[in-house]
């Protein structure tokens, strides 16, 4: 059976051998013919596979299928952009654009609304329900910047929908934040159990009133020299008896010689001022 199957190959070999011999050249060794057939088969296989599997526009623009660009460009856009919303809902867009949510696009909460813009009455955009859509941005996460409004959902009015207290188009909190601890919670907690607990934040930080409205635009001041700490802690200093209502005479304030203590370092390079270790 093998011989019958092999007949075309043996015929071919005989033919090649006859052909090469007929030319009067040296006979091609059979090994070369055998390997030649294999390499030819691999070469032809590669050629056929390339024809079959490589997309027509491959390499036109780069090492990818060129037609993919056109195919993606042809996709119907699903988002229309807030300018489109403003045509029919100018009041809502105006309120939002003046509020803390001015950088949030309408479709961030209401979902892609290009269909709605095309056929306003037939296809309605989503109305966000429950707490989850708000928590996507306002859930407490350590990696979020201090000062960004965040809630721990289990503690912050559980179950109640956010919109029952907050207006998403103008999310100014119902009560204006008064205390520094609302944003600088970690610092406030450290300070509360430290020897500096009786001191208000404003003793060291002069904070403009606008800081509570626009925290990054109006930054509070920080002490920048050793002498500032020295007003209370220098050996010869006479601290004011009362600092913002605190009677300092009842405290035993640690004293140092400003001229020799700590060389040229500023105090906060060694001491953490919100929880100083010396008592």
């Amino acid at each position: 059976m093998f011989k019958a199957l092999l007949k075309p190959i043996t015929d071919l070999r005989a033919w090649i051998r006859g052909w090469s011999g007929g030319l009067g050249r040296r006979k091609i060794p059979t090994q070369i013919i055998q390997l030649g057939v294999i390499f030819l088969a691999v070469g032809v296989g590669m050629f056929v596979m390339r024809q079959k599997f490589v997309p027509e526009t491959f390499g036109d623009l780069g090492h990818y299928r060129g037609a993919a660009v056109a195919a993606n460009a042809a996709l119907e856009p699903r988002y229309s952009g807030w300018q489109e919303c403003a045509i029919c809902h100018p009041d809502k867009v105006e309120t939002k654009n003046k509020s803390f949510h001015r950088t949030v696009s309408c479709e961030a909460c209401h979902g892609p609304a290009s269909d709605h813009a095309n056929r306003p009455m037939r296809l309605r955009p989503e109305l966000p329900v429950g707490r989850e859509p708000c928590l996507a941005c306002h859930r407490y996460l350590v990696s979020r910047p201090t000062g960004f409004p965040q809630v721990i959902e289990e503690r912050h009015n559980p179950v109640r929908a956010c919109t029952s207290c907050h207006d998403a188009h103008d999310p100014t909190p119902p009560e204006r934040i008064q205390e520094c601890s609302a944003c600088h919670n970690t610092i406030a907690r450290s300070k509360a159990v430290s020897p500096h607990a009786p001191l208000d934040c404003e003793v060291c930080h002069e904070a403009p009133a606008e800081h509570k409205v626009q925290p990054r635009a109006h930054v509070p001041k920080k002490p920048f020299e050793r002498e500032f700490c020295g007003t209370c802690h220098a050996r010869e200093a006479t601290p004011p008896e009362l600092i913002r209502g605190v009677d300092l005479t009842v405290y035993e304030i640690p004293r140092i010689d400003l001229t020799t203590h700590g060389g040229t370092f500023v105090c906060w390079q060694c001491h953490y001022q919100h929880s100083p270790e010396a008592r």
Partner: protein
Amino acid sequence: MDPEHLAQLESALGQVTGFIYPNEVELHWSILIVIYPYLTGLVAGAFILASLERVFNVKELQPTYRLALLTALAFLIVAPMPLQAHLGHPERAFEIFLTPNSASAMAMFGFVYAWYLMVVLLMEIWFDYRADLVRWRQSDKGVMKLVHWVISLGSRDISPAAVAFDRKAVQFITIVGIPSAFLLHGYVGFIFGSVKANPWWSSVLMPIVFLFSAIVSGISMVLLIYYVTTLLRRKALDMKCLNTLASFLLYTLIIDLSLEALDFIHRLYESEESIEILEQLIFGKLFLSLTIVQILLGTIVPIVFLAAARFSELPNEMKRMIYFVAAVLVQVGIFSTRWNVVIGGQLFSKSLRGLTAYKLEFGGQEGLLVAVGLLVLPFVILALLLKILPPWEDATTDPDPEPSEAQLT
């Protein structure tokens, strides 16, 4: 996020020291990428050993010539598997051949691999075995007859002219094969050496260091396989051959150590900004695997052992034992070399300010089990190849006489 993944991330976070970027906590190139250069190195090393006999006429190595070729083939077949297990979707692998991307060093490796497998290794083995295959077929029965017939591609010609042509072809392919073997493993070194953002990898010496460690690993692996297979076959070990193998292993180990030392001294003298974090790496996370295992146990101890055994008047039994132990130590050392390059290069932050840790999984696609499987697989393939293409001199139909007592000593 997947809770299992989160738990894993948390345990890795516990190991982090200093400052590192969030995407550096977990290592992306796992133990499978350690195995890949390890296997490729063995291929190149085994082939270069085989070429010593054929091209450089080191006749003492005759008993290991075919064994080295088959070892190279067995490891070459497995070499791309860790990459495919790591990347996933092995069914798409052929596409790198259909649409060659000359701008990607990794993609072009497919062609280097294909060239080495098809043009160098398979052809050399085929030419070398062809006459034997024809002879074996005449005495074979059953499946083996068919297998030998298929492998011989239906050859029948064993005339002196045809055998002479085979010999010439082998000679020619080996000469082409030496630069190809250098290319194969030098290329793996190049892939790491060309990562300019990583100070642990980025070095022009990388391809050369890889190449010499490949030769070291190949020679010691063939020595081990020759040792074990000969014992299993209850034959006498050719002591001349073992001595020559040990000598070559010793010389290449010394070159390898010198190159590594050169690289180290060069880095130390340059003292680029990365030197501090690399110092922390070498004396901290990599102290055991680099200083103790790679340099001390994997290089210096084998050098001392081999030199002591090779140039002393010890009895042959003792020498063999020492060669064997040295070769095992070299294998462990080379594996940890690959580990230190691949894993070590990902342990420090691009900020050069912090270190992370690698946690090896047990199961899973990139776990210990898969890794062990991939390390065992070449030996299974080799056992099969030894069955089909016995490399022993007594298997050929016109055998040389059994090694005499004089040869054994």
